[in-house]
């Protein structure tokens, strides 16, 4: 029983990170209708920035907030410079552009900060509550929940949030209402980048910091977004927690999976959900007119 509870809690903790990554993926999907294959690398790069700031002597929380600001600006810059000129380009061009960004960030981080594995500090004390859940894991869940609450308030109660929702739902009408859809998309990129950064910084103490740390996490983030419904941010978050718990339970209780086939679990999950229920658990079904 204790093992079971422990697995559930630590699943919820990694699930929080998947939720953050999934949410970032969904935000960009809602803005430009594409999967950001470089989302993980953006988060990784942000995490390195945070590490460098802490290394330079800044206190953890200052570095944390500063990194989120830098990531936000970086996300907007990426949209303005790289993806704005491509907005009418075919899908394949977008995929290649995401992959180009992937290479630049991955190798750029390796070039600036080296490919060696670095330990990342955790702001939370070591140890755990009666062996069930570590303080860092509680912190991960807590920070992600706070972030989600803030996002909810932003989208529900501010005019910019409303404008962003309008721009995502119906760009033409939004434009007619005087909303700058282009800037709303840029804002979406900035926020996605910042949300991803939070996920990266929080998971780094668990998986260790190195340029390739996010590939597996991004895959689980995608799986979470697909399970929850790619068109529904709240669904993606729920999907993140579910996928995190599922990953741990499958790894623990199905003997041949272990920790060695975790990525295959994500693969099977993505393909089966896309086949059985492509809109995910909470997504809306899109109907195309022929």
């Amino acid at each position, binding site marked *: 029983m204790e093992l079971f509870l422990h697995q559930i809690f630590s699943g919820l903790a990694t699930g929080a990170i998947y939720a953050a990554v999934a949410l970032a993926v969904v935000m960009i999907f809602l803005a430009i*209708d*594409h*999967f950001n*294959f470089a989302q993980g690398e953006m988060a990784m790069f942000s995490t390195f920035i945070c590490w460098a700031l802490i290394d330079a002597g800044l206190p953890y929380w200052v570095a944390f907030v500063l990194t989120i600001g830098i990531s936000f600006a970086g996300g907007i810059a990426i949209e303005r410079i*790289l993806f704005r*000129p*491509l907005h009418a*380009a075919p*899908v*394949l*061009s977008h*995929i*290649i*552009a995401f*992959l*180009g*960004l*992937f*290479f*630049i960030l*991955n*190798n*750029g981080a*390796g*070039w600036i900060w080296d490919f060696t594995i670095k330990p990342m500090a955790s702001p939370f004390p070591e140890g755990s509550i009666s062996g069930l859940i570590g303080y860092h894991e509680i912190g991960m869940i807590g920070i992600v929940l706070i972030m989600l609450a803030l996002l909810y308030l932003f989208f529900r109660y501010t005019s910019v949030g409303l404008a962003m929702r309008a721009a995502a739902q119906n760009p033409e009408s939004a434009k007619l209402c005087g909303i700058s859809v282009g800037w709303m998309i840029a804002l979406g990129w900035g926020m996605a980048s910042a949300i991803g950064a939070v996920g990266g910084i929080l998971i780094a103490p668990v998986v260790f910091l190195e340029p390739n740390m996010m*590939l*597996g996490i991004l*895959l689980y983030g*995608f*799986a979470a977004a*697909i399970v929850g419904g790619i068109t529904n941010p709240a669904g993606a978050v729920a999907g993140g927690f579910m996928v995190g718990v599922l990953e741990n339970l499958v790894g623990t209780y199905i003997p*041949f999976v272990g920790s*060695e*086939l*975790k*990525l*295959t679990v*994500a*693969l099977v999950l*993505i*393909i089966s959900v*896309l*086949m059985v229920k*492509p809109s995910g658990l909470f997504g809306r079904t899109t109907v195309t007119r*022929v």
Partner: protein
Amino acid sequence: MTAETQVTAQSVDPERRIAGLTSGGWRCAATAIAILVAVVLPWTLGSFQTFQITLVLFYAIAILGLNILTGFNGQFSLGHSAFFAIGAYTTAILVERYGVSTYLTIPVAGGLGFAAGFLFGFPALRLSGLYLALATFALSVATPQLLKYNHFEDFTGGVQGINLLKDSAPFDLPFSVDQWWYYVTLAITLFAFWMARNLINSRTGRAIMAIRDNPIAAATMGVNTALYKTLTFGVSALLTAVAGALSAIVVEYVAPDSFTFVLSVYFLIGLVIGGVGWIPGAVIGGAFVLYVPNLAEGISTGLAGVLFGVIILLVIYLMPSGAAGLVRLGITHLRRRLDRDNNKA
């Protein structure tokens, strides 16, 4: 008479044909020259360069496979490294564990690749565009882990992979090992390209392209879209698996970390560089993904990946139709210039 019909009238003008043959004649000439160059090349190069152009060739086969799927059938794949790995591992396992002749393993690898691609084609049927890209992305990210999986270790060699040795030229032919395998690869490449061209120019090829252009209209015309899409996936994976088998033989080594997501990305980039939906482009794409990363490494070792990323972004912005677009542009220019000269005369 409109200007356009005049141009066509001129293009069948016999005088003009001497200057530029007919377009079909030009194509034959270009192919002949390319094959001639390919045959002569290893005699002018050292063994390492010969080895490298062999790599270009099997990359070209893999990219050709992806081109049939993406360029002609409109299905995206970021997962072709998995089919490449199937080919490579089939050859390595058959040769090393069961002592099968190296040459025999190539068709076996192709057959297994076809089966795997055909089967993967079924879930792919239900996924359009982006979602298929995502599913295949997951496939290629999961592949190295599956290859390392310790319950398969007796077959796959786990993390260590498998070493093999390539046979030298049979019948005391006067080729070095590298040259021999270059010619074997070249022969398979030519065969693959010939088959691909015939496939695309056939009734089946027209059905494949019709599905890309308008699946509903294609289905209305009586094309069995599901069957053709899964078969295309199979053929595409077959070619990529053959390329993988050749890679195992030529490189003499297979290991899980050679078949990562990055390899799939290389195929996709090679496809876009060569030109989506243009068969000869695969060779240009193959050369690009082999030489450009090396070139970038030559400029700066640490920054190689960054430079590579910048280069592919520039390609997307500046020549989104790849080498195919460049060639087409060149031909149009040449034609215009010729027309101008003819008008003056």
